[in-house]
């Protein structure tokens, strides 16, 4: 009795699609991405090493200098060094990205577990809850959270996190269902293992491994969402050099000082690209292992 329900709708927005070709080796893209990720890690934990200047130090008379040898990425409207700010901004940007993703995943996990192990009623409740959450588009729910908490990075992070939760919840539910009905979970039951042990030792580890890849993708998306909130004036607070906020404030000067927009923008895109590449590589490896 095989379950052959091919459900086209079960594909979720955040589910990483299969790589375009059956690449097996670690491609140059992945190597570059890992390199960039290492750079980011350095920027997060020891920004002073690669950008010794003070990101908040203003020099009004040096404002709007284009990229040069002394200012690689130019300076902004207050004469602050854009390179320094971009490096020092990695931390707060990624904290938003990671924290938002973590909030989304944890919420989703709770929903997913309730759906799968809460019986028929639990599944129905979660199913509706996910639909309701889906019915609140990401930016809309973000604005609602801000309505309650007031603007700021914490609200933005929670908002972005919650708005990604339904997508993750669906994937987790599917993943949990697949794992729960798999031969090896059945085998564990037949060996007389208790439900708690099966959940913790067998189901969760296997159901959550695809999420690792997803999470890396989510981080980049969360940074992008948070930047939109900054654009609307509801995100990070100055002088924190958060990328989204930098991008949002630089937009005003686009025609006169392109470098203000381009470099933070490149960081966001590069982060998303490398996160995606690494995420896919992890996912592919996971699948191969399975």
């Amino acid at each position, binding site marked *: *009795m095989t379950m*052959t329900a*091919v459900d086209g709708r079960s594909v979720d927005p955040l589910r990483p699609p299969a790589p375009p070709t059956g690449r097996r080796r670690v491609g140059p893209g992945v190597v570059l991405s890992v390199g960039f990720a290492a750079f980011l890690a350095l920027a997060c934990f020891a920004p002073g090493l690669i950008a010794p200047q003070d990101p908040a130090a203003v020099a009004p008379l040096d404002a709007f200098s284009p990229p040069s040898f002394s200012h690689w990425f130019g300076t902004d409207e207050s004469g602050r060094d854009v390179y320094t700010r971009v490096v020092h901004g990695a931390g707060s940007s990624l904290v938003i990205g990671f924290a938002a993703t973590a909030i989304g995943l944890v919420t989703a996990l709770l929903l997913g577990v309730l759906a799968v192990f809460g019986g028929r009623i639990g599944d129905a409740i979660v199913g509706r809850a996910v639909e309701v959450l889906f019915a609140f588009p990401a930016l809309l729910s973000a604005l609602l959270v801000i309505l309650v908490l007031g603007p700021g990075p914490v609200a933005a992070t929670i908002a972005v996190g919650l708005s990604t939760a339904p997508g993750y919840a669906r994937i987790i539910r599917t993943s949990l269902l697949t794992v729960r009905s*798999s*031969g*090896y979970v*059945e*085998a*564990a*039951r*037949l*060996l*007389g*293992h*208790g439900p708690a042990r099966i959940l913790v030792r*067998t189901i969760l*580890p*296997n159901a959550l*491994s695809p999420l690792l890849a997803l999470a890396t993708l989510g981080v980049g998306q969360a940074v992008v969402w948070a930047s939109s909130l900054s654009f609307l004036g509801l995100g990070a607070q100055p002088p924190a050099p958060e990328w989204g906020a930098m991008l949002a404030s630089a937009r005003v000067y686009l025609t006169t000082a392109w470098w203000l927009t381009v470099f933070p923008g490149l960081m966001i895109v590069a982060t998303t690209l490398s996160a995606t590449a690494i995420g896919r590589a992890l996912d592919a490896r996971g699948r191969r*292992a*399975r």
Partner: protein
Amino acid sequence: MTAAGPLLRIDGLDVSFDGGRTRVVRGVSLSVSEGECVAIVGESGSGKSVTARSVLGLAGTGATVTADRLELAGVDVLTADERALRRLRGGEAGLVSQDALVSLDPLRRIAAEVGDPLRLHRRAGGATRSDRTIAVEELLERVGIPRPELRARQYPHELSGGLRQRALIASAIAASPRLLIADEPTTALDMTVQAGILRLLGDLRDAGSSLLLISHDLGVVSRLADRVIVMRAGEVVDQGTAETMLAGGRHPYTTALVRAVPAGVPRGTPLSAPPSPAIAQPTSDRDGSTTVATSPWPLIEADGLAKTFGRGDDATVAVRAADLAVAAGETLGIVGESGSGKTTLARLLLALATPDRGEVRLDGEPWSGVSERRRRSRRRLVGSVAQDTSSAFDPRASVAGVLIDALPSETVASARRSTATRLLADVALGPELLDRSPSTLSGGQRQRVAIARALAAGPRVLVLDEPVSALDATVAAGVLDLLDDLQRRRGLAYVFISHDLGVVRHMSDRVAVMHEGEIVETGPVETVFRAPRHPYTRRLLADVPRLPGQDGEAGQDG
């Protein structure tokens, strides 16, 4: 186009993937003449499918195909341009693959799939949609699909497996190709359906079509083929007329293939060669004479078991009123077609499902009626081996991990690894596999690990649900021998479920025939097979593809 030469001629075909690193077909030569049926037989990985597909220039992406000669209907396939190839595909040679559920586009109606070749090859009746409708209905009728006007409008998933396969054949023959390539056309179909498809292919051959038949199953091939080619690891190892091949051929591999078919081989006779050393003496008569003492009552018994899924109009009765009992050292075979309720019965016995009515007793004590909490400590008495070995193991665990996890919790930590090694040895696997991931093992190895896991807990009953159905014949033979051996040494009670009558007959002491959730007939295996009482059993037996000299009557007395 010449009537003189063969329709298909292959000389020295080589196919490789990954830029030549993986050679899957080496120096294969064969030919098919007009009206001839040639069969390629081989196990998985033998290169038989790739060979067949190369004929149509469809060896797959990344394939490198070279040959001294590869001609279809007088056209050189290797040098033909895309347009010429398209004329060949469907026009000169039609392809029927395994499992029409995925080989027909699930999103298109039967009419579209069957009518496509007419349109593509500008065949008569292909010009307009309405003409095609008529032509398609004729084709469907020709392949024996009742109510073609209804079926044409339906989608593949709405048809039964047999009808689907017929529709796939209809689409392959729509543009009247002279050659039909049938790649495992009956695999995964029930016996009775399989027989019908083979009859249809036979009819087509009789009507003048040439047939290139690809199968892993000598029994299937034996019905149709004029000549049989045996492939192994990309090479042709043996070939000849169907009769010579079925008699064992010239090559030892052919002999092993023939030998591995359990149909009619008496209980206890090893199917694999060389025989497992553990089996000292094959015994043909084992009625009540096991080496381990039988308990006074059956180890596992079921009384009036019934299970229905769904409710109201959607209700499906999976099992109705099943009674059975299996004693230590005994094997009860359960045979039936897909959907007959075999698997549900297995799940009821394993207490993975709760019966609506009736009761299962294990070792004389209630089993189905108690809470899972109370059942848990006794679960180790019942082991299970399932068909699907690919999802049977935690993807994150090694073989050692799988086995250690299955050991009783009181096993001393230091002894666990050695116990795992011993378990592997019990299923004839070496300790070097301990640290491998099950996913990297072959299907046969995986099934042995699954058996080892089932044994780890020290069970007295094993429920075996199609344990060898996914395995190649020679591999399956080894696993069956192993099971036989284990039963003898440990006095295990087996519930052995299979759709394959031959396997069941070989393995079982008693057999129960299931049909639509009901056990229609039960009794000692030879009694049931030789003198079936129920009409369904009779029909089932009639449809078994047999190797000449190995049919039911010939196997008597062993």
